[in-house]
């Protein structure tokens, strides 16, 4: 039991993921800077590595301002709840073997539910905060979600079909010799596009477009709630990258067999991290090369292009398996 709790909360569960989330943000900012021929964070920790940590702690120590017309309860307790969504999701991801900490035989459905819940939480938070920019932002968020939900489900179905099972561990174990990305490349691409939308990154950063609607639904948050929200966004990023790794890139598994338990764990972890960071990097590169599009363009793009594409992929799989 204690072992299980340790796994859930520290390694490879919550704490581990939070640190990866910090590392992701650092990497993102540093690479963004490099691409823009800048230097990026430099003074906080070696090479600025502790920059996200500094940001987080600073927000924790800051005053919280609760807007007058906001729902106080949701405003204060929503952010931790929002944070728990990807945190729980992360516990399903198999890292040190074929099974995640919480894994069971229909966990893929649970993952889908979690992704929907995260959007729901975001819109609830924005709504509780009140304010015009938040309201517009939520409208966009929900509209965007409804248009990417179908391609999301369809693209996740492809590896499930290939593995003939709805559990992540089954999907992972079916990829020992061949990754699903080679059989379902379109689904992988669609999944990346949908991840951009879920993460509110360009070209889909419409709900938090700062030049249009300030900071979107986060406009009114400050202090500790904001710290949670920022962290959750990074955690979401990690969660989606690791999900892509699990679904399409074979998770932590190695084609060779290693006897030593300890060495095996280390190797698994390493493989998993490399893959996750690569996916994160890929998402990041796509993001930096594009401009933001408009909400109606986004919905039409997601409906008209990605949905038929993912259907096509499923059809191909069904026909050729």
């Amino acid at each position: 039991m204690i072992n299980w709790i340790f796994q859930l909360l520290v390694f490879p569960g919550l704490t581990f993921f939070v640190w990866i989330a910090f590392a992701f943000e650092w990497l993102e900012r540093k690479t963004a800077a490099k691409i823009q021929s800048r230097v990026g964070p430099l003074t906080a920790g070696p090479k600025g590595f502790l920059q996200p940590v500094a940001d987080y702690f600073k927000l924790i120590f800051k005053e919280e301002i609760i807007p007058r017309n906001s729902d106080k309860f949701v405003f204060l307790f929503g952010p931790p709840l929002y944070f728990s969504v990807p945190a729980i999701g992360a516990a399903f991801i198999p890292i040190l073997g074929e099974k995640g900490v919480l894994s069971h035989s229909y966990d893929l459905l649970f993952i889908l539910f979690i992704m929907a819940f995260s959007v729901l939480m975001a819109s609830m938070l924005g709504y509780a905060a009140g304010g015009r920019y938040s309201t517009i932002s939520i409208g966009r968020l929900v509209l965007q979600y409804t248009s990417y939900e179908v391609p999301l489900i369809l693209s996740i179905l492809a590896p499930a079909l290939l593995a003939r099972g709805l559990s992540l561990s089954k999907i992972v174990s079916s990829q020992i010799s061949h990754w699903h990305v080679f059989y379902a490349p379109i689904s992988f691409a669609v999944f990346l596009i949908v991840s951009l939308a879920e993460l509110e990154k360009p070209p889909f950063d419409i709900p938090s477009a700062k030049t249009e609607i300030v900071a979107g639904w986060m406009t009114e948050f400050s202090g500790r709630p904001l710290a949670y929200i920022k962290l959750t966004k990074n955690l979401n990023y990690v969660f989606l990258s690791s999900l892509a790794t699990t679904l399409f890139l074979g998770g932590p598994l190695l084609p060779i067999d290693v006897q030593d338990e300890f060495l095996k764990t280390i190797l698994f972890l390493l493989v998993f991290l490399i893959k996750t960071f690569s996916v994160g990097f890929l998402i990041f590169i796509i993001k930096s090369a594009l401009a933001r599009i408009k909400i109606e363009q986004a919905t039409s793009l997601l409906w008209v292009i990605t949905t038929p594409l993912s259907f096509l992929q499923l059809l191909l799989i069904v026909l050729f398996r």
Partner: protein
Amino acid sequence: MSDKDQAEEKLAKISTGLIQYSPEGLVPFGPVHPALKEPEYFKIILEGEKIVQVIPRIGYAHRGIERALQDRNWIQAIYLVERICGICSFSHSLAFVQTVESLTELEIPRRARYIRLIIAELERIHSHLLWLGLVGYWTGFDTLFMWIWRDRERVLDLIELITGNRVHKSYATITGVRRDLPENIERHIQPAMKYLSDRVKFYKEIINSEATILIRTKGIGWVSPDVAVRLCPVGPLLRCMGFKRDVRTDDPYAAYDEIVPDVKTSTDSDVHSLLNLRLDEIEDSIRMVLEAITSIPTGQVKSSIPRAIPRGDAMGHVEAPRGELFYFVRSEGGNKPVRVKIRTPTLANILTATEMLKGHTLADVPVVLTGMDPCFGCMDRLTIIDIGEGKRWQINGEELRRYGIEWYNKNR
């Protein structure tokens, strides 16, 4: 019925009180808003995401410069008009100085006229690059923004080398320029211009083929040329509607009669054509700077500055990066101007911009509003300030008069 017609009809209904707009439909844009680096307030009336009406509310940058100019002597005034705005600061001082010079019949040395042209064109390059970078920023394309601003630093370096400051050049003076060019400046200018013209080619390629930029700018902000005739925009905004108007060729000043600009026009009149037009203008400016620096004559850069300016009225205009900048100066023979009136490009363009916005969505607001490249620094010298909290901001002459009488009665 087109979107525009519908919008017009809606507007008519709003103004006659037939439709009441809920506060949710009204989105404030500014005065402090991340898309506008300057304080300006636009009341945007929305229906869903569609814009029905835009009401600009100017005055957030009003400082009272025209009044203050009446207390400054001719030399001090140059520094003050320059600080109407930090982006085309040289255009302001140049326009003012030229207007004053036309009162005096002084001879401006030929070398000084060439130097003025060089600085004015460098300023145009810097201003257009700044704007192009901001378009990247407004469309959420941070990488483009950073690259363009990185390249803009090359121009600012040149400006600093010549004038001593990156932004406020403080360089023009009556009868010429304050200092000569540094020695061997062409050794700095030539490589920088070469680098920039390569970069501009690259940016042109991005603007014309990157799909996300194209769908954000093509066909956005279209207005018909008739509107232009009615609302009289100036500068690139006018030129992108197919009118070939440019003060530099219509009424040459500085050395523009010897180094002739090639005025570009376009007929698409949308934000995308503005992007291309401005990039073309940068290329042309680069050509002109290079030409000027090779054929610059030797000689003095200023003659002696008169203490008092003869009595008279004068008007002058220059082509600032954003269009025609117009100055009127009245002198009564003293050491101070009696009246200075400035008509700036943004003020002339703002109405067209609100017209451009109608029928588009909220997401287009930053792109369009800034597509005309507004900078409210210069627009806000003339405004009506609302009196008291909660009162309507449009006050008509009668109200103003009554207010004035009441105020005087109270404060006597």
